[in-house]
């Protein structure tokens, strides 16, 4: 009886997104909006404040792949030239699409903004994976932030399974791998072995600032700078860690379903 009462009270919790709106709090920090026209000549306050060297002054640029989405740069800027919007759509198909420039503010050009988001895979690949995508996760020095928020995509709220996407227990069952962490020296071989164990055609998805650039661990001796450059990455998901919606948005765009 208690179980039935609890079941009734727990209700249906799966979110309305992508068909309905996704609600995020006002303090959530999503896509930064840069406006170089506000910069003061010679000012480097944002670059000096950034913990990972993701921001450059004069001309104002930001590498979303290295950004931890801490508000240090926005806070340091005396003129509001950097502001974090609540737009959680951040994933990109090419690494250079994560290089933001302050010269043409993205928010004023809807087309430019769309182009920077992840694009759909070629039709032939989409026929294979579009409705059923099985992924294997490899943490290669991840701190358990990205891992925890990938895990959470499986709970009833985000319900990854409703899109036909699933994390599986073996690379042999997988269509691709999801890599987190800066790729430590001690994990690089295991990462390569796992990748080789995935049958082709296969996808590689890099999640989080560490996997994209090294994140807070950029330049540390026992680490790499994320996914080794000889492995082709199909989807880059920035964040520290990325919000589960950022990951889902990237996956669905890659599959041509958004």
């Amino acid at each position, binding site marked *: 009886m208690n179980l039935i009462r609890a079941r009734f*009270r727990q209700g249906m919790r799966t979110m309305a997104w992508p068909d309905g709106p996704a609600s995020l709090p006002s*303090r959530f920090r999503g896509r930064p909006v840069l406006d170089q026209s506000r910069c003061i000549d010679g000012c480097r306050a944002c670059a000096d404040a950034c*913990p990972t060297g993701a921001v450059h002054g004069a001309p104002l640029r930001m590498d979303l792949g290295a950004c931890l989405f801490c*508000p240090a740069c926005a806070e340091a800027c005396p003129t509001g030239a950097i502001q974090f919007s609540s737009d959680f759509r951040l994933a990109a198909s090419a690494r250079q699409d994560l290089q933001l420039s302050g010269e043409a503010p993205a928010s004023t050009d809807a087309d430019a903004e769309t182009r920077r988001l992840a694009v759909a895979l070629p039709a032939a690949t989409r026929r294979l994976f579009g409705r059923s995508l099985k992924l294997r996760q*490899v943490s290669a020095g991840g701190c*358990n*932030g990205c*891992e925890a928020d990938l895990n959470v995509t499986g709970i009833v709220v985000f319900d990854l399974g409703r899109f036909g996407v699933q994390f599986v227990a073996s690379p042999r069952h997988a269509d691709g791998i999801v890599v987190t962490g800066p790729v*430590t020296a*001690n994990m690089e071989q295991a990462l390569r072995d796992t990748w080789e164990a995935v049958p082709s055609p296969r996808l590689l998805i890099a999640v989080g600032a560490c996997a994209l650039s090294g994140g807070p661990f950029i330049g540390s001796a026992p680490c790499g700078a994320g996914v080794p450059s000889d492995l082709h990455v199909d989807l880059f998901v920035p964040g520290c860690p990325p919000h589960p919606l950022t990951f889902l948005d990237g996956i669905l765009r890659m599959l041509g379903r958004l």
Partner: protein
Amino acid sequence: MKLANPKSFHNGQAVAIFDVASVAPRALRDLVVNSCSHGGRLCGLFTLPGRPGTLDLVALIAHDSEGRLSMLKAGVAQGGRYPSLTAELPSAHALERAIWESDGLQPDGHPWLKPLRRHPALEPAGAAETGDPVGRNQGAGAAGGRDHPFFRMDGPGVHEVAVGPVHAGIIEPGHFRFQCSGETVHHLEIHLGYQHRGAEALLRDSSPARRLAVAETLAGDTSIGHGIACCRAMESLAGIEVPEQALWLRAVALELERLANHVGDLGALCNDVGYLPGASWFGRLRGEFLNAQMEICGSRFGRGLLVFGGVRFGVSPELRHDLLGRLAIARRDLDDVASVTFESPSVLGRFEHSGIVSRQAAEDIGMVGPAARASGCTRDVRCDHPLGAFVDWGLSSAVETAGDVLARARVRWVEVKRSLEFVLARLAALPDGPLVVPMPQPRPGAVVGVLVEGWRGEICHVVATGDDGQIVAYRVFDPSLHNWFGLTLAMRGTPISDFPLCNKSFNLSYAGHDL
């Protein structure tokens, strides 16, 4: 044997390095072993730069019943030897292995001397911060990577099971080597180090902004716990007091982190015994606390909340009202789920008597946190060495005695209830005033040890400055470093099929261990 009482101080108090009593290495061992047989607890053993050509071997001991800490040091020549503590004080075993492999000091008489984090056969040359004693100088290169000298059993019917480093779920990497006969595990060796990112060197050498970012990602599910330890250590060295409102908001964030992780663990435990209502509902409720954290600071993991000198974000009256309402509903839903879970015979039947760690074993290996409390140890930094907004909480630690999976689940549930009351009470009565004060340079020639009760247990950060005020050493002891061996002990005589359940009941950090 009556020995000189080392100078004591309270949690988070910076002391001059020359005030730390200096003794001979043998006396250090005797004093530490003696202290730990009289209620002391070894929180950390590490090196600091010593006189030219030497390293200072330093022990940080907690005297829980007195609410004091003490430190002792002994000079050891670089690359030299000292008498190991481990044979008499098993809680030192991992600490001495870390010193051996990264600082090159040889602990004479260590019964289990092998690499802890380094895989010299895989690492590029020069990866070690200070030499590479394990890989090259001592000809032990074969000890690393795939040739790690695992403990092995022989005999009829004995077989070995190797798991990892890549696991079947979305989990961090580590290698588990089981010695079994049939289903029964006789010994489990846990070989980590795959996550080693050189974090201590970064914490020592980085700019303040990056230092805090690294601290927040030492163990990413404990961003607030490690972040507070880092902030407190640097603030104490700089000699500043953080405003009261900031201390309260830090405490609220620390307890929200505990709530999210404990509730998530309860769900994951349900999942591992196939109790899907508990798995779904606890899993969903975990998100309520992550979302509360995100409402306050914009990040589900609390990143960006902490700054040196205070916090970045306050809580407006509207947000406070909203959070109090949401958390009250979460409390009601949690009560529902917990009552059906802890009444379910199928859950109790799997949790009870699984993966037992005795109190004696927990004491011996220096376990901390909920896992230690489930085995009857009362230690809880929030009770024994409270800082900030915890000072007048009057919390009594949640203790169980059975030491099994059920005890570890129950401790979590009791802590969930108490933390939720704390968060509701503190949010409702948040003080006014500034959120942050300016941060001066750290004072020279000082050392500070900070303990914070993270959700996994005691987080310890030790920071030392040189004569010019630069950080010369930054040491981190994640609760996982103490507790991984507890999982080994829990598996002895346990069917291997119970490993996922036992592992989840500890839920330890790989990154926090490997640093």
